[in-house]
């Protein structure tokens, strides 16, 4: 057997080693570029509290309708007026929303501005618009809707 030092029959192996190492260097450069691409755009889509604000809005709309129906139900068995019951129920809802949002580090507040009716009386078909102030703040995004006009008919 020839000694390793004098054996020169390894040209192709040496050459393929070089080619493979060059390919690896190229791949590493590509992978490094790919790692930084698209961070900010995807981060903006994730971090911006779009869904939170939409939920707060649609919950408030839904609940205004539910509260209206509930206050008529309660009114049939109690002496309180409908606006009074409505305000009480809405205050409850407001407290719950504040606690819920505070538990994931956001400030949210919904407060009743006015209950509007077309002819001044508060019958089941008369109350049509509820005005509500909605504010939301998560530290970087500040949302204020005052008033949010909710149709409850």
């Amino acid at each position, binding site marked *: 057997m020839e000694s390793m030092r004098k054996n020169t029959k390894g040209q192709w192996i040496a050459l393929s080693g070089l080619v493979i190492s060059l390919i690896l260097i190229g791949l590493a450069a590509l992978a490094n*570029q790919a790692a*930084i*691409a*698209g*961070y*900010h*755009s995807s*981060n*903006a*889509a994730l971090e*911006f509290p*779009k869904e939170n*604000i*939409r939920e707060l*809005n649609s919950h408030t709309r839904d609940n205004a309708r539910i509260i209206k129906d509930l206050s008529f139900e309660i009114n049939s068995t109690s002496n309180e007026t409908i606006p009074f019951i409505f305000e009480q129920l809405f205050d409850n809802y407001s407290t719950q929303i504040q606690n819920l949002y505070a538990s994931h580090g956001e400030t949210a507040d919904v407060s009743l501005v006015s209950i509007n009716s077309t002819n001044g009386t508060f019958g089941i078909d008369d109350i049509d618009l509820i005005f509500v102030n*909605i504010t939301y703040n998560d530290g*970087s*995004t*500040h*949302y*204020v*809707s*005052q*008033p*949010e*006009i909710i149709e409850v008919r």
Partner: protein
Amino acid sequence: MRKLSKNEEGVSILFEYILFSLICIGFFMIITTNSDDIFMKTPNEAVMQDEMSDIGNMMSTMITDMYLILPENGYIDTEYRIPAKAGREEYMINADIAYTDQIIEVISSSSGKKVRVTIGGIATTMPINGTALSSSTNHVISYDSRR
């Protein structure tokens, strides 16, 4: 005559030395004169292109998202964070041409590099304007229905 491929006798060591030296000197001359282009400018271009279109897309995403939840009566403002430099250069986000062209530009003032991102036709229903420098401390997008 032996075949050329089987002939293992090459040039003399002295001549080989001169040949190699000349090749190496030529090679290194080319490399040194172009080193700034090859090692700094080209990678910087690639990184800037990536980062600037990334930031343009971020602005486009945020504006579209805000547009979806705008209050009818009220206001919304949101802070965002962007890197002070793309590659080695500061840049400016320019939304002033959004109204006519439906695009947002990210421009580097030092090299003039420019990346444009569309905002999907929002500006026809709602005017969008303003510029933001990457080096300023606060960046805010805001909307107010009363303005």
